[in-house]
């Protein structure tokens, strides 16, 4: 490390690194910028603090960690969640098998950061090298931004029953959920992805979901159900993929729905395939979700008459007005299914 490089440079940035949720719904958000306003909660260097209101009825948010720390982990400067998936660092790293290579201690860390800034091959957090992990993250990630997270914090005085501010209190007057485990979070642990209770819970839940691919009790089921196919995926492609696990009896593709059934000759083949494709598989460049097929209903199909769910009977002749009050609605009398 030459002398110049070791000089501590304070971060002075023009724009924060934020996730969509933290920015809020309004595209015309206004921010205040304070140069060297606070110390980074991870590396304790002064950095440029941005502060803004992410929408009506939300609380003011500000950046908590510096940009170099955020870039090192590809996380939002405010919520310390992954920028691509919006998931905790621990979840992302364990799914993609990433190692925390950055040293924690001050001088080593600074040196590491300088090297990272100079390198031509930045860290890859997209998980392109690990499609199964990427698939798992996609399954765990939220579909859209989750603005509930920007709501005001809970009023601690209200919880104790001593809030005197009443209606004017800017904090939320709700009782905290009895969730002692999740209450113990801190930014540093969440940043480094070590003992983060939220991540722990998400990972546990996801492994429980993978157990959902456990073979069903009905031994006659030897078919798998695939969802998320493209129109180009043919039955032969699917057969070619699953042939490795056992002899495939037939493949039924439903192009309109983008799904398919793979029927194995033996149950063992189906089980082997299900075991192998936990977390989804990639056929024809498209990731596909897999579930066990359902048992065919046995015996002749009973064509039971459907209960009539037609609307209300026509109004009595002569009445021109629509129903004025609820008791005039014959469907509300309780005799007919609604």
């Amino acid at each position, binding site marked *: 490390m030459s002398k110049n490089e070791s000089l501590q440079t304070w971060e002075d940035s023009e724009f924060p690194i934020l996730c969509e949720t933290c920015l809020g719904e309004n595209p015309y958000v*206004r921010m*205040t910028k304070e140069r060297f306003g606070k110390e980074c909660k991870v590396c304790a260097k002064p950095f440029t603090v941005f502060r803004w209101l992410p929408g*009506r*009825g939300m609380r003011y948010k500000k950046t908590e960690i510096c940009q170099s720390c955020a870039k090192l982990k590809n996380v939002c400067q405010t919520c310390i969640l992954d920028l691509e998936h919006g998931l905790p660092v621990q979840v992302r790293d364990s799914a993609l098998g990433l190692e925390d290579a950055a040293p924690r201690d001050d001088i080593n860390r600074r040196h590491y950061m300088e090297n990272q800034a100079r390198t031509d091959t930045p860290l890859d957090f997209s998980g392109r090298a690990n499609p199964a992990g990427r698939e798992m993250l996609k399954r765990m990630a939220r579909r859209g931004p989750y603005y509930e997270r920007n709501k005001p914090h809970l009023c601690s005085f209200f919880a104790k029953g001593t809030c*005197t501010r009443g*209606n*004017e209190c800017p904090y939320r007057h709700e009782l905290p959920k009895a969730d002692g485990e999740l209450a113990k979070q801190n930014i540093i642990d969440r940043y480094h992805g070590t003992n983060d209770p939220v991540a722990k819970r998400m990972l546990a839940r996801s492994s429980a979901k993978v157990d959902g691919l456990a073979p069903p009790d009905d031994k006659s089921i030897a078919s798998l159900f695939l969802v998320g196919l493209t129109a180009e995926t043919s039955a032969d492609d699917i057969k070619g993929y699953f042939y490795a696990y056992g002899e495939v009896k037939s493949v039924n593709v439903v192009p309109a729905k983008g799904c398919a059934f793979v029927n194995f000759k033996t149950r063992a083949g189906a089980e082997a395939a299900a075991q192998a494709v936990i977390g989804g598989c990639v056929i024809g460049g498209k990731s596909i979700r897999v579930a066990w097929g359902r048992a065919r209903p046995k015996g002749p199909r009973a064509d039971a008459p459907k209960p009539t769910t037609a609307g209300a009977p026509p109004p009595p002749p002569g009445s021109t007005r629509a129903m004025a009050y609820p008791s005039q609605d014959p469907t509300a009398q309780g005799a007919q299914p609604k």
Partner: protein
Amino acid sequence: MPKIKTSRTKPPPSGWDEIEPTLLEFEQKMRDAENETSTGKRRVESTWSVMRIHHQRSRYIYDLFYIRKAISRKLYDYCLKRNYADGNLIAKWRKQGFEKLCCLQCIQPRDTNYGTACICRVPKAKLEEGRTVECVHCGCRGCASSD
């Protein structure tokens, strides 16, 4: 406010005797507000009672002179000179749109982050439903003219 009366002190203008008890009452209230303990209050809240009495007292003089026309110009000027009323605040009240202004700090855009007036200047109709605001300067809950 001069407390010492000497032989050279000018007698107050006529009509002073009528308004003096009210002003003394205000003065007593102001003393109490100044000496009030600030324990259990937020930091911004500590000056709110002083600001409120200041506003009330100025309003009283303003009312007497401009609305009810009960006191003479001479007496009005005397009150302003003795700091019984805030002349700058009254000057704002006479302008359209500022009829109910709570304090001068609340219309000072240079003091705010985004160069705007205080939240209490926003008409109730423009705020979201069911939101009560208290401005940090003087605890005002809304002083727009349309409210």
